[in-house]
């Protein structure tokens, strides 16, 4: 095991940037977030990056490590820097604010455009709605519900890169959980939101999202479900 890591970090902004090299002392059980933090604290205080919980719960530390999007706090250096070298860049498919910080606004805008918000009909004065946890629809929703909006799937998606209007795996995954929520009253609007060339139908099942999701979710499965729902609606004249 080498004593020093050779780390390439992307530095720059919206107008462009370049790689800069840093030598970071290697430590046991070191994560990529540890490496980035060391650079900012000990070597170059001008480095901009994001993190919060540092224990794999918030998703804020997502970056591109050796070309693939990952949570840096949950990526051990041993796993990705076998030859003592590492590269860290901001998440792909998103505008860069500065250095390793990506602008997440478009990600969440698309979430909203996919009708990714719950719309209920009951008020606090009404009784609870009864949903059987073992029902097919609830099981499908539960399989996709754990998304924390970290953006890794969005950064990994080839269609997002090729099709600027594409809503993306996270937004569609959330729409899928709500489509399976019997309490939601916006199903018609949601189907329209996820139909068409900018939404579910644009997914080409490359499955990069499913491969990279740190919570082991499968947006591909949810998007396939949306495709079927949308097709049914179109054939029945409901779209």
């Amino acid at each position, binding site marked *: 095991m080498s004593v020093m890591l050779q780390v390439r970090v992307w530095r720059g902004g919206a107008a462009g940037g370049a790689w800069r090299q840093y030598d970071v002392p290697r430590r046991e059980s070191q994560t990529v977030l540890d490496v980035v933090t060391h650079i900012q604290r000990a070597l170059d205080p001008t480095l901009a990056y994001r993190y919060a919980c540092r224990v794999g719960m918030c998703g804020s530390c997502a970056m591109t490590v050796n070309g693939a999007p990952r949570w840096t706090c949950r990526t051990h250096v041993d796993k990705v820097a076998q030859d003592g070298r590492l590269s860290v860049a901001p998440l792909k498919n998103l505008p860069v604010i500065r250095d390793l910080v990506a602008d997440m606004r478009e990600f969440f805008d698309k979430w909203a455009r996919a009708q990714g918000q719950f719309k209920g009909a009951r008020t606090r004065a009404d009784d609870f709605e009864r949903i059987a946890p073992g029902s097919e629809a609830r099981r499908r929703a539960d399989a996709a519900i754990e998304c924390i909006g970290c953006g890794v799937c969005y950064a990994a998606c080839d269609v997002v890169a*090729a*099709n600027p209007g594409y809503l993306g795996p996270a937004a569609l995954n959330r729409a899928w959980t709500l489509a399976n929520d019997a309490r939601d009253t916006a199903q018609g609007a949601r189907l329209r939101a996820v139909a*068409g*060339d900018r939404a579910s139908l644009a997914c080409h099942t490359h499955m990069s999202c499913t491969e990279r999701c740190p919570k082991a979710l499968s947006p591909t499965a949810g998007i396939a479900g949306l495709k079927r729902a949308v*097709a049914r*609606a*179109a*054939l029945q004249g409901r*779209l």
Partner: protein
Amino acid sequence: MSRRAETLLWVAQRASAAVLAVCVLAHLATLIYAVQGGLSGAEILARTRGNVAWLVFYTVFVLAVAVHAPIGLRTVLAEWLGWRGRARDFALIAFAVVLAGMGLQAVRGVVA
């Protein structure tokens, strides 16, 4: 194009794909069988001339392809060439007509 129309295109693509799955498997099997010992015009035509089953099979094959290929190209043109909109769709309709026309001529050529 309306969301409904785009969705129906997607449905047509999958439906024609299912039809083509059968046709292509049959076609691949036929090719592998026929190419043994060399190909000859007489051999091919002896199989297909005047045969109603081949006529039906190839006609279905051609029509499914005429639906499937243009819709497939539509996505490629949008994503790789940035070509979206009416002009692209008209060009693809023209291509579909050409494929169907030439395909049916080919069917006629080997079955008539």
